């Protein structure tokens, strides 16, 4: 197991290196830099050049790349031009917001999606199946920013049950944190719930038609035990795979949801940094996000073994 873990961690290094090269290259190809933001509309070309010199943006690309990778090897993600603080500090301060949002959404999407998928599979070709499919399709095809605004108006303005936006740290007020996360997490979960529900339905349909399930039923085993202990566990491999992929989607989808609900997460940090050309924040933020994604995929690989002993034994 340890060898497997080490191998997976080592294989993440080239992935993260490629991510860093692509983000570094892309940001320096984009026209404009932070001097425009700092100089304002009436800055002259000379003013902007002076700002570039002060920030070291006039140095050749290879020199900047060397400096960045040199610092990175020492665990330094750089320094934000605009926030005036280390990038690592800014990113790690916001990571709990994004992880809370993505984690809760993943939980909601998985629980709702799996239950909906099971229901559709068990009641195959009935109105329940068709209803569950319609619900899943609605989730898949609803734009999350629109759905977010609708939920804000419904639960925040009309009913007044939940806040319209903002973030309360868990450490400050757990109830406030939960209230601030319900709508964003549900909004983000809705689309992905549809994906999981459809995957669960099809995977469960395969499993439910197999001999061992029929045997279990013939032995008089309770229906719930057959579905949840025997059928679902065997249907989980493709579901877990989808959940792994969805984690990445949720992390990127959090960007939009953070905007709609005014959550100070990593997504919003990166978007703001892109708009203002605060390159170190973009590079550092994307690298940390990629690390989270890689980590989640390692966890998914480990889960394969837990759900399917054949995979575990093969290692």
């Amino acid at each position, binding site marked *: 197991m340890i060898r497997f873990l080490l191998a997976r961690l080592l294989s993440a290094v080239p992935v993260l290196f490629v991510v860093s090269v692509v983000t570094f290259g892309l940001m320096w190809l984009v026209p404009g830099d932070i001097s425009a933001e700092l100089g304002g509309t009436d800055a002259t070309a000379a003013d902007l050049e002076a700002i570039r010199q002060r920030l070291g943006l006039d140095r050749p690309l290879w020199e900047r790349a060397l400096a960045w990778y040199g610092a990175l090897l020492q665990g330094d993600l750089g320094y934000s031009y605009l926030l005036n603080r280390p990038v690592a500090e800014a990113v790690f301060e916001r990571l709990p917001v994004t992880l809370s949002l993505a984690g809760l959404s993943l939980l909601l999407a998985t629980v709702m999606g799996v239950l909906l998928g099971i229901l559709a599979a068990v009641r195959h070709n009935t109105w329940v199946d068709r209803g569950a499919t319609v619900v899943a399709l609605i989730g898949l095809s609803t734009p999350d920013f629109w759905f977010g*605004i609708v939920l804000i108006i419904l639960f925040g303005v009309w009913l007044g049950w939940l806040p319209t936006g903002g973030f309360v740290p868990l450490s400050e007020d757990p109830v406030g944190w939960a209230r601030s996360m319900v709508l964003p997490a549900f909004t983000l979960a809705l689309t992905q719930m549809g994906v999981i529900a459809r995957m669960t339905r099809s995977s469960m349909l395969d499993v439910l038609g197999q001999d061992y399930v029929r045997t279990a039923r013939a032995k008089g085993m309770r229906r719930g035990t057959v579905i949840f202990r025997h059928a679902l566990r065997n249907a989980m491999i493709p579901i877990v795979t989808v959940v792994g992929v969805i984690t990445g989607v949720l992390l990127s989808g959090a960007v939009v949801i953070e905007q709609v609900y*005014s959550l100070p997460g990593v997504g919003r940090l990166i978007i703001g940094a892109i*708009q203002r050309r605060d390159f170190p924040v973009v590079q550092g933020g994307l690298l940390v996000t990629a690390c989270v994604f890689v980590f989640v995929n390692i966890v998914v690989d480990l889960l394969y073994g837990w759900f399917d002993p054949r995979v575990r034994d093969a290692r």
Partner: protein
Amino acid sequence: MKPHRTIARAVRGLGVAGALALTAALAPGLVDAQTRGGHVIFAQGSNPPSLDGMVTSSQASRNITMNMYETLFGFSEAIVPIPILAEGYTVSDDGMTYVIPLRKGVMFHNGKEMTARDVKASLERYRRVGATANLLSPVREIEITGEYEVTFHMVAPAPTFIESFASPRAPAVIIPEDDADADPGKTSLVGTGPFKFVDYVPDSHVTLERFDGYSQDGRHDGPDGFGGRKTAWIDRVTFRVITEAGARVAALEAGEVHILEAIPMPAARRLASSPDITLFENMPWAFSVFILNAAAPPTDNLKVREAIQVGMNMEEVMAISSEGLYQLNHRWQYPGTTYDPGEIGAEYYNLGDIDRAKALLREAGYNGEEFVLLTDSNIPQHNKAAVVIAEQLKAMGINARINMVDWPTALNLRLQDSGWNGWTLQMGIEPYLGPVAVTATLASPARPHFVVPDPTLDALYQALISGPTVEARQATFRKIQQRLYEIFGIVKLGDSGIMAAARSNVKGYTAFRFPRMHDIWLEG
């Protein structure tokens, strides 16, 4: 040395203007007693780039910092410079020396008293890191001539110096001497304003709380523009950053936010009759302009630029880009202000004369060359104006193409001499500051917005900044207005406004260039 007459006139003028402003500001107070306490939440659309008051000219920062810091001079409600931390000033007969006595007993948030040493240190820092450090370029040296007095020794007489120095664009705020060597953004965020800094969580909020040691300016009866007698009633104010306009409106309707910096006009119309919401029209707020590149074909041809001027229907552009909150105005100043140039240029404005435009294009030899209309996706007024303008240009027979990029890219591209022909822009603070600030963007030594310097305009700008009297400067500005309608390097589209909104239990709030958190209170 004699007391300067301008300031005396200004203070006298304030008697009327200030009283009017005060009456408006305190009108609710006549029926509602001010209540001390409470927590007001203000929502704005973007993060403050910095809370170091002097290093940024961003409105998002100004909204907050102008409640934390103060300047020696600032603009009154009637846009006349008034002393704030200064007692006043006297200027020598040759215009080379300004003696500025300071108010005594003004306390910083750190509990120390402001002295001349703090003022000199702040202004020397402003020279190094101030976003508009050129405000102090007419000053050769700042000398401490008393514990509560500084003297400015000038490079040359600068009759408009105090007007420029009072600019709130990137204000020359006074901070403690201890912060004088701090790099941009690295100060202790201590000022002399009625509110002091508590915390800042980027992308979330900034919190300020009432500074109980605040030294009120006893020379006034109430607030006046950026100065006056300020009274902080509320305990705490949070500036929340809510980027999504729909979410901002929802937060106001739900009562989670008390004041919105700007509410979209469709939402404003919907909420106009709501008893829970009060709207505050801030008109005029900005010039909407369309800048032409006089260096790149086809707009390097004067006749092509004139064709665009006479062929455009400004009302159509303004109505759509401002969502209906606008006024038509051909002037390069706001109507009724000191430097209002009157009807000069009106004969070229909002004509929508397509036939005349086509004739001028024929005369110019225009042959279907591409016209690249540069705009950005970040500021809706810019891109909405661009869409309407592009259609109008096509109707004139101009081969217009919109190049919509993000804001930093647009700022970068417009600095190129080629690759663009027209650029849509909102000029927010310059018109408020007056004719010098507006003309400075169009004349040398800066790179004019329309790229190619015009020697006549440059000479007029020099005459404007050295004009010894208001009357002389008014005469010069009329010539500048005339010249702008001769070279057609920039098209004035109109004046746009912004609509602020507040919960009805917020009392004393008035529309201004920044949200004044002093002299407001919560009812109930």
